């Protein structure tokens, strides 16, 4: 398979270009996705290539973007709806939760919803308010949705392509801080990676970190730092946040007996809680220490001056690892 060096945002674009070319039912709609190529350039050149009927610049209305996608999907299209930042998912929440997530169920399979809702997500780029949010737990808690967040260019391409081909709606969260953070060889042309499979980023036997998106990096850094002390830390990138790869998590924690979950979203009722709940439910007797959570705090994502104190960093993960190892 031939590859090309791509950043994550290029990989995202490439996945859409390939799927638009492959399946005439695929359409892209959202704010500034046309001539502007998206505010992050994730749709750069797509309108020029596929025309204004396949790549639609919409008026500024998120509920309408998603609600229109519902109608498009009901009538046989496969829309990719871009929400400009995850902070602006809320105006579309009714369409997402009341219709996207339910239409298949409500119509007993007659009107499936093969919709991808792509949205730049999470923090780290020092933007104004509402541009740094991590809302995965809201969507995980909403039955009928799948939720994905890639942490590498390759995963972004393969998972987005799978999401587009999936017959169920997928909320696809793209970490803005990673859009241009690295370049790597990404397969060209058609390429998919299975949804629902975690990725073991680093193997270890003494503790497991489960994380995703922006916090994979500080987790790895923390693992390396702690390993200087002679222990081995396993790092799992969840990738698909729901339905997630519980098997991989349980297999790892079954071996290590210790789990630290790291995520940017606020802690309370976040996805870390679900991980903790499932692990204690199914592996209580294997747990050598409580499941630790290293997360954003339970406050609105702060403005740029304090943002770095909010996002879990290496130091906080190290502390949690030490705590669990010394329990």
């Amino acid at each position, binding site marked *: 398979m031939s590859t090309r060096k791509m950043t994550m945002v290029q990989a995202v674009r490439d996945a859409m270009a390939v799927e638009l070319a492959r399946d005439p039912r695929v359409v892209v709609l959202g704010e500034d996705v046309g001539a502007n190529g998206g505010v992050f350039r994730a749709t750069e050149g797509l309108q020029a290539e596929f025309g204004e009927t396949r790549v639609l610049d919409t008026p500024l209305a998120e509920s309408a973007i998603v*609600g229109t996608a519902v109608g498009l999907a009901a009538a046989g299209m496969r829309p990719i709806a871009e929400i400009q930042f995850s902070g602006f998912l809320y105006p579309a929440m009714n369409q997402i939760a009341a219709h996207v997530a339910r239409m298949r169920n409500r119509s007993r399979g007659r009107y499936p919803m093969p919709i991808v809702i792509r949205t730049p997500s999470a923090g780290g780029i020092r933007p104004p308010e509402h541009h740094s949010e991590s809302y995965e737990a809201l969507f995980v808690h909403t039955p009928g949705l799948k939720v994905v967040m890639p942490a590498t260019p390759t995963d972004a391409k393969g998972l987005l392509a799978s999401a587009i081909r999936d017959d169920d709606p997928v909320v696809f969260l793209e970490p803005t801080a990673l859009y241009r953070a690295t370049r790597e060889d990404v397969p060209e042309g058609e390429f998919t990676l299975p949804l629902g499979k975690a990725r073991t980023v680093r193997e270890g036997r003494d503790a497991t970190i489960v994380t995703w998106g922006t916090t994979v990096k500080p987790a790895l850094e923390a693992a390396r730092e702690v390993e200087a002390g002679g222990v081995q830390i396993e790092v799992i990138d969840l990738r698909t946040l729901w339905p997630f790869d519980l098997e991989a998590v349980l297999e790892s924690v079954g071996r290590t007996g210790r789990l630290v979950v790291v995520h940017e979203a606020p802690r309370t009722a976040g996805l870390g809680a679900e991980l903790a709940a499932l692990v204690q439910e199914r592996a209580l007797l294997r747990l050598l220490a409580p499941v630790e959570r290293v997360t954003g705090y339970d406050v609105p994502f702060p403005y740029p001056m304090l943002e770095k104190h909010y996002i879990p960093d290496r130091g906080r993960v190290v502390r949690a690892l030490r705590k669990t190892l010394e329990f």
Partner: protein
Amino acid sequence: MPRTVIHTGVTERLEILDKDGRIDPELDPGLAPEILLGFHRAMLQARLFDDKALKLQRQGRMGTWASLEGQEAAQVGVASALAPEDWVIPSFREHGVLLAFGIPGADVYRYWRGDERGAIPPEGRNVLPPSVPVGSQLLHGVGVGLALKLQGRRAAAVAFAGDGGTSQGDFHEALNFAGVFSPPTVFVIQNNHWAISLPFRKQTASASIAQKAHAYGIPGIQVDGNDILAVHVAARDALARARAGEGPTLIEAHTYRFGNHTTSDEATRYRSPEELAWWRERDPLLRLRRHLEARGLWDSTHEESLVAELRAGIEDMVEAAEALPPPPPTEMVEWTYAQLPWHLAEQRAEIEEAAR
């Protein structure tokens, strides 16, 4: 030059058949008698179907029911202008549209008895399930219309809402998208003058809903919604334009619900018997019957035998609806995803265990 008029938006109202059953000769669409008799049949069926549901509800054989009585012309007038390949995107009160569009009455009853399976339209008919969140379905009308356009089909989408629905942001976003993308979508607002207890004059300070079309650069028209001819003509024209690629239309059908909002409501708490009486004089069914009678096309013998025939058909629908056994409890987890994910496979087992 300084204080200049930049826009003048004129909004019209169409009435053809007056309350005594007389047709305005200039506007007479000249429909054949069979067509008019068909309208009458469909409206009567809708009314009897509704009446039966209310009776069943009182007997505990039906769930919450939103009565359409009084809105038969507004519903049948639109449905009678539909082609089989058109799409219907209803709210929760459009039983009359569904019946006239060929959805089995038994399915409608099933749905409102609390069974999701009642929302599956027969093959060849495209009707989205009733949308309960007020106004939200109008956007689906935009999307369906856009899909039809992209697919190059000569078909239209009709999306329904009530006067209350026009206050929702989704109404605005749908009509604005429709103005911009020009899908073959017809928005039908049945303005029955009440949203539960809120009268239309408190729903908006706008004099009409039709005039809101000017905010979106699309055509809008108000029709006497108890006048089957006016509704039919407006819908027919709007649908023809839509199918011809000429874009969306907003139709406001002025009507009234004779009954309670739903079987959980008690309308006497908030509205006067005089108002109801005023509207009952404008009963859409009576009006068409008067017209047919005046033309010698109908009489009480016809009426009686049609009522008997339709009632029998409705009894069959009830029987069919009640004959369907309830789904097994595990049914509830089967349809959320295309393939059952691990957690729902586990939960299905829990449901089975709990049902034991």
